[in-house]
């Protein structure tokens, strides 16, 4: 276990970003220390072998060892000031074993031959102690050993090699352009993560992976103090599995949308987005309040990703379905009998949803998961029918699979790995269709862009989502902006109301950088791709109140 700190975003003026707290693991270090190498692979292999042998000699029938170095650099600014910079490093080893048919786990920051051997022995002792309460022995889907292999996020620029000053200067410049264009306040942040993970197992794998993630974001605010009203508009960036090249703002990666909106694919222009945010947040101040009722919704990928995450990603986690998360996140409506029937209509026949850990530039992309399984893509929903779940090695047999899906993850060396959501994405439509063409056919609708408020029940039936920008559509045209919009629906009803999906030219990924699950809670990062999609007759409520 570890000491976890939480950066309170409310204190940094970023409470409106709807993130309860930003978890930090490990200890503060200097910027330069983030670039130092801690251990060479040859040394890691030697240490891993010590653990494998120590566990085996104590009676383990399976062992995996994760020597991990987890680096985080977070930068926070508001208006003209740099508020906070954190450089964090967490380094240690986690050892998981099966002994007497039962899992045992132990972790230590003492990465020495003695420390690792002791840790392996503790893991075996815990497994044997817990075996008394075990009902059925753990059975792992087979995995072949891969020998010594490595993989790295294919970055062009290592974010940690870019001087901090260059990064804070960019955030301050974006703040400045927002202020010049009418934002009253702006808070901006850059989250950078590098996971250096060495995995070894008694199956004969020695896997070295170097994973990078980036998330630039901001909240621009406008205030009409005379009337006593304020509005915010968050960045339309997406967290990515990329290096600092994501900040290049390449024109070739921009998708022009209606009303001057810009969608960003694999490259983000923070200066442009900050300017647009300032203009749009002021437009929000004067926008009319929505009339509650049924609307056809046109959902931008930067919005729809979160709906996919909550209403498809989480309910299809097999551990939830089985009841392992009952005391915290809950269970799932997508029970095994629905899957076994082979005809559970999760969505309309346009809906094809895939899980993967391989799509380039995504948060989930790795070559091997945290139990040494080679990653892949698989179908979750095919032509609207529920066809599969997300399963790891000790769950595969429950759904008659020969192999794990490769979606096991731990957020730190000191956390035990468990089933986590892979990327879960909606496939684009096959026929050529632009957003403007989609809007042309909508008589009474709302076009929603950006991530807003989100809430869903513990079995993932009933949900409510807000957004950043809401445009009223009347008779095929956008007629203006709306305020106080949230839509409520039921997962199956919603996905069955899907009537049109734009083609691959509109496809982009949304991301969740700090997705929480488990007790004690662990985070993970995951992407969700989609093209703009239309849902008919969705219930929209008005969230305006007077206090």
């Amino acid at each position: 276990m570890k000491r976890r700190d939480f950066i309170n975003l409310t204190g940094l003026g970023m409470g409106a970003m709807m993130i309860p707290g930003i978890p930090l693991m490990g200890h503060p270090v200097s910027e330069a220390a983030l670039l130092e190498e801690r251990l060479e692979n040859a040394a890691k292999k030697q240490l891993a072998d010590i653990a494998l042998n120590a566990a085996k000699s104590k009676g383990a029938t399976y062992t995996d060892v994760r020597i991990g170095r987890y680096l985080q650099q977070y930068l926070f600014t508001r208006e003209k000031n740099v508020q906070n910079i954190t450089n964090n490093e967490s380094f240690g080893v986690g050892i998981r074993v099966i002994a007497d048919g039962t899992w045992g786990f132990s972790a230590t920051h003492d990465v020495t031959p003695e420390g690792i051997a002791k840790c392996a022995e503790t893991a075996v002792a815990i497994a044997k102690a817990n075996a008394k309460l075990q009902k059925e022995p753990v059975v792992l889907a087979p995995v072949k050993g891969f020998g010594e292999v490595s993989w790295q996020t294919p970055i062009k620029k290592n974010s940690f090699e870019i001087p901090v000053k260059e990064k804070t200067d960019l955030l301050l410049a974006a703040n400045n352009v927002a202020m010049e264009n009418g934002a009253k306040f702006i808070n901006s942040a850059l989250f950078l993560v590098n996971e250096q993970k060495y995995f070894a197992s008694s199956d004969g794998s020695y896997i070295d992976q170097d994973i990078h993630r980036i998330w630039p974001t901001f909240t621009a605010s406008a205030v009409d103090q005379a009337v006593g009203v304020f509005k915010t508009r968050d960045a339309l960036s997406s967290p990515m599995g990329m290096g600092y090249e994501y900040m290049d703002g390449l024109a070739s990666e921009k998708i022009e949308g209606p009303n001057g909106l810009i969608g960003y694919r694999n490259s983000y222009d923070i200066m442009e987005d900050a300017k647009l945010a300032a203009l749009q947040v002021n437009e929000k101040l004067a926008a009319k309040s929505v009339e509650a009722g049924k609307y056809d919704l046109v959902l931008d990928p930067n919005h729809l990703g979160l709906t996919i995450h909550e209403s498809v990603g989480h309910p299809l986690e097999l551990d939830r379905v089985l009841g392992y998360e009952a005391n915290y996140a809950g269970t799932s409506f997508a029970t095994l009998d629905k899957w076994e029937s082979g005809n559970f209509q999760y969505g309309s026949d346009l809906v094809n949803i895939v899980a993967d850990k391989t799509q380039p530039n995504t948060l989930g992309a790795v070559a091997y998961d945290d139990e040494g399984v080679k990653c892949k893509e698989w179908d979750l929903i095919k032509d609207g029918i529920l066809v599969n779940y997300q399963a790891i090695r000790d769950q595969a047999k429950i759904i008659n699979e020969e192999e794990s899906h490769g979606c096991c993850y731990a957020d730190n060396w000191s956390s035990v790995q468990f089933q986590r959501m892979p990327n879960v994405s909606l496939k684009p439509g096959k026929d050529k269709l632009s957003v403007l063409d989609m809007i042309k056919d909508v008589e009474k609708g709302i076009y929603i862009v950006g991530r807003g408020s989100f809430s869903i029940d513990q079995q993932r039936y009933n949900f409510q989502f807000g957004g950043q920008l809401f445009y009223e559509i009347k008779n095929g045209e956008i007629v203006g902006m709306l305020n106080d919009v949230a839509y409520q629906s039921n997962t199956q009803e919603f996905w069955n109301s899907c009537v049109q999906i734009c083609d691959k030219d509109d496809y982009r990924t949304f991301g969740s950088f700090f997705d929480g699950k488990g007790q004690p809670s662990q985070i993970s990062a995951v992407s969700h791709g989609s093209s703009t999609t239309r849902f008919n007759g969705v219930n929209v409520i008005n969230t305006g109140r007077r206090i």
Partner: protein
Amino acid sequence: MAVLTKEEAKQIIDKVLSYSEADEMSVNIYGGKTGNIRYARNTVNTSGESDELGLSITSVFGKKSGNTSINELDDDSLRKAVKRSEEIARLAPENPEYMPMLGPQEYEEAKTFSEATDAIDPDFRAQVAADSILPASDKNLTTAGYLEDFSGFSAMGNSKGMFGYYKSTSVDFSITVRTADGTGSGYAIKDFNDVSLLNSRQTTEVAMQKAAASVNAQAIEPGKYTVILEPTAASNLIGLLARSMDARSADEGRSFLSKKGGGNRVGEKLFDERVNIYSDPAHVDIPASPWGADGLPRQKTSWIENGVVKNMVYSRFWAEQQGKEPLPGPSGIIMEGGTQSLAEMIRNTDRGVLVTRFWYIRAVDPQTLLYTGLTRDGTFYIENGQIKFPVKNFRFNESPVIMLNNIEAMGKPERTGGNMIPPMKIRDFTFTSLSDAV
């Protein structure tokens, strides 16, 4: 040893301060042990225990600060850490909002430590799991539960002569019980500093009763209902209100406490006059750490008095800007209530909905403090003073500000989630849709 005595901590802090070349330096030492056990499907999934001892240093030159931390407390490691924090500080950008460190402060003695909690061991945790799993499985019910305990200390000191030390313990226990067919679910949660107050078997019993009683829930139309919120449900929403009392956000015009035309709403009556919310680090049921942000002493503070906003949280920077006294935020709040028990409140209700807890609560509109979320694990229809039948869960869209203007009655406050909150009867609580979730 992960827990240092006051004298040991002071000695190390003084040593670290003696190595400093910075304009200002502060040192924090923290340590302790934490353990947990998690179970689901009537079997233990994970359990563990760990010790930690750490020291963090903040060095400051002018308005530039640098922070580092270490786990080794030998002289050589401490000297290196001081040097590193000074290097980081020299390279850091200037923070125009930096406030000089505080000098010596008077802190009340913390009442946060319990020997019984400190003595929790793996056998105790396994017994807690067994006390849930065995009675539930006897009745063909399925449990999922989690216990986490902590015992440790915190010490801090700085180059201006400030020093503080306290020990604390905590234990958190939550239990979900479901019927075998998945049509009923019940929940109970308890948290204490002193584990001898925890009766996990009794807590499990409550969740078991709720699971059995919530089978075959009926759907009733969403709309405005009189609700009786158990303390956990009430705390879910009142806690959010208590965390939204920052003066700077209000003065900047981006809070529900912003005043039209500028400034904030301190002194205005925004709630029913029976609403009294305060914090008190010495409160016997929810003792808190003696200091808040920057080492400011926590004192008994009234936040809402007779429905009037009495105080708001001022950081030291914002207090100086506004010519006010700095005031740290509360760690836990106490809401005064009445003397009625939950059972009496139900007996005195003609028609209403009893809510065990809320789930997945998210802000919808910070302007009005509007939140959405759902009822979960025990929602019942009340008629003529009796619980008539379980009802399907509801989604709500409601603001605690509106809720605290619609109070019908309040019962005896209980500790939940680190707060003391009464069960509350609220009229016109807004349920906007139904959920099939159990």
